[in-house]
């Protein structure tokens, strides 16, 4: 008996390791194979200099250049060139051989250095150089002062944000965070955890671990709180403080308490309650605690998502027979249907400009995929292609979608650009991960 148990333990340990490898491996694998997607950029290793402190030694730190490369590549908008073993290593634009980098295929070049200031503090310099511009002014020339090595990872994301914005004109999301839920199924009980992590999947930390299912995490617009649904003996909507883990219960009515959605200004929470019959959309004023029902009728209404202007809410409803996306104008209560392609459209969200709808869409083959609908012309395009994709959540810059997917018995998180050209899987070290939620832009750095 004991031997069997031990054997099982070894087997499961082996499986766990294998699973971790499998999950971690796709970090740099482009599933769609669109290898040359985006702007070609070379990010050179950051040179280490002791500066004014001759006794300083190189410290073991996160490799800033590697993090920047990873960020830019995984955004789907850059093609990061392999610079291993190259024989030139310019420290600034004056040392750059433009002809060499043109031949190398780089449109842009990033060079940088880390200078010790003593006392464990460092200054980090970097330049972003346009290889084709033909003058000696870098696009970016930035110095970040007084950083400890533990801050280098966050600093690298910040540099990625600056580069991304300079070259695409859109703010980068590399300093944002994600939340997601993990499930560990044990013999006696199932453990459900709410995690937060950096946008690239690193620095993950469980902020809530409970024996009952939890669902639908949503970041508050200031990034300080996450609303979520708990399915204990009764369902409830709760808010957790991301920093200290303190929890507050907001609603616990009979039946459904679900699908929380913060208003853009953070003063209200839309939600779904079935206390008066069918599941309907309600808006709770978080200050006055006033609860207002905003949809009516006997059909299912769920999954509210606020229009960025705060004037209307899009939601899923089966009032026409099948689940489709509708919009309710909050002032008048008027409802209009906005999806007409296919028999199953759900989980709506809108891009920050309000012009495109992201949703869960059932294809003609019956697969559940993430799709984008242009709200001007109604055209729908699927951007994923597995069987059971779900829970799309949009990056705060509106350029990428994180979503849940199934691979065999595993639940994983995937990321895809809005045009569907670049897809990857997140390197999270858990067996069953579901329901990602992308944070808003965070005021930090």
């Amino acid at each position: 008996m004991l031997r069997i148990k031990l054997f099982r333990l070894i087997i499961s340990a082996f499986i766990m390791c294998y699973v971790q490898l499998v999950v971690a491996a796709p970090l740099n694998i482009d599933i769609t194979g669109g290898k040359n997607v985006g702007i070609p950029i070379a990010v050179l290793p950051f040179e280490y200099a002791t500066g004014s402190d001759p006794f300083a030694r190189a410290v073991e730190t996160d490799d800033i250049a590697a993090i920047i490369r990873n960020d830019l590549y995984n955004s789907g908008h850059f093609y990061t060139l392999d610079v291993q073993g190259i024989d030139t290593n310019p420290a600034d634009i004056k040392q750059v051989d433009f002809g060499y980098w043109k031949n190398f295929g780089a449109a842009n070049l990033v060079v940088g250095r880390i200078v010790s200031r003593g006392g464990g503090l460092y200054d980090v310099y970097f330049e972003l150089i346009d290889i084709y511009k033909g003058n000696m002014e870098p696009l970016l020339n930035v110095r970040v002062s007084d950083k400890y090595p533990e801050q280098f990872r966050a600093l690298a994301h910040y540099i990625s944000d600056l580069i991304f914005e300079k070259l695409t004109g859109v703010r980068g999301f590399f300093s944002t965070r994600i939340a997601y839920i993990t499930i560990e199924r044990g013999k006696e009980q199932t453990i459900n955890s709410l995690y937060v992590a950096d946008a690239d999947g690193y620095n993950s930390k469980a902020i809530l671990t409970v024996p009952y299912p939890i669902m639908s995490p949503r970041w508050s617009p200031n990034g300080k709180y996450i609303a979520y649904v708990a399915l204990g003996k009764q369902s409830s909507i709760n808010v957790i403080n991301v920093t200290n883990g303190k929890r507050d219960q907001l609603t616990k009515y009979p039946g459904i308490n679900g699908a929380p959605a913060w208003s853009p200004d953070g003063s209200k929470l839309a939600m779904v309650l079935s206390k008066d019959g069918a599941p309907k959309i309600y808006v709770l004023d978080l200050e006055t605690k006033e609860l207002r029902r905003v949809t009516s009728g006997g059909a299912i209404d769920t999954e509210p998502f606020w229009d960025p202007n705060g004037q209307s809410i899009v939601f899923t409803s089966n009032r026409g027979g099948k689940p489709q996306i509708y919009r309710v104008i909050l002032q008048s209560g008027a409802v209009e249907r906005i999806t007409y392609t296919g028999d199953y459209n759900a989980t709506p969200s809108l891009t920050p400009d309000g012009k495109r709808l992201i949703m869960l869409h059932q294809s003609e083959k019956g697969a559940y995929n993430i799709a984008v609908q242009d709200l001007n012309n109604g055209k729908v395009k699927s951007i994923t292609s597995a069987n059971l994709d779900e829970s799309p959540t949009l990056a705060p810059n509106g350029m990428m979608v994180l979503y849940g997917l199934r691979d065999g018995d595993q639940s994983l998180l995937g990321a895809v650009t809005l045009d569907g050209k670049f897809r990857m899987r997140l390197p999270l070290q858990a067996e069953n991960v579901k329901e990602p939620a992308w944070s808003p832009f965070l005021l930090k750095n």
Partner: protein
Amino acid sequence: MSFRKIVTLAVLGGVTLGLIGCGGSKGANDPFADSSEGIKPVSGFYGEHMSSEEELGLLNKKIVYFAYDSNNLTQADMRLLNVHAKYLLDHPKLDMRIAGHTDERGSREYNIALGQRRADAVARYLESKGVPANRLHTISYGKEQPVDLGSGEQAWAQNRRAVLEYEDK
């Protein structure tokens, strides 16, 4: 489970085990844990004939299964729920918790709504048989608590269900 079965069987004076349906839940509030609580058949309640063996079998069955995208109760489901309605009426100190579940396809929150419809369908039926609404507590777990973790029609059929559980007030 088997201990409970044996106790209840003893009270009734013996029926075959084969009649007893598949796994109910194992809550501490299970009425069958108390051997003094036997079944008191109320003649005419069902409006149809039912042997005490069948009644016991149905009472041990606490799962109602549903077709895809449906919360319709079949004749067999109603026969099952009749037995539970009577049991609730016979035992006023017990409440019932009804949990609705769905298969894994589609949106999680939409599935919560579908699961709630299943739990509500069961609750409404029990109400129609005279059980007060305030003794019936519904919750939907949507697709969050599958019993069969696989994919495919067989697993999905197992997961589309409403689970009944007796609990003390």
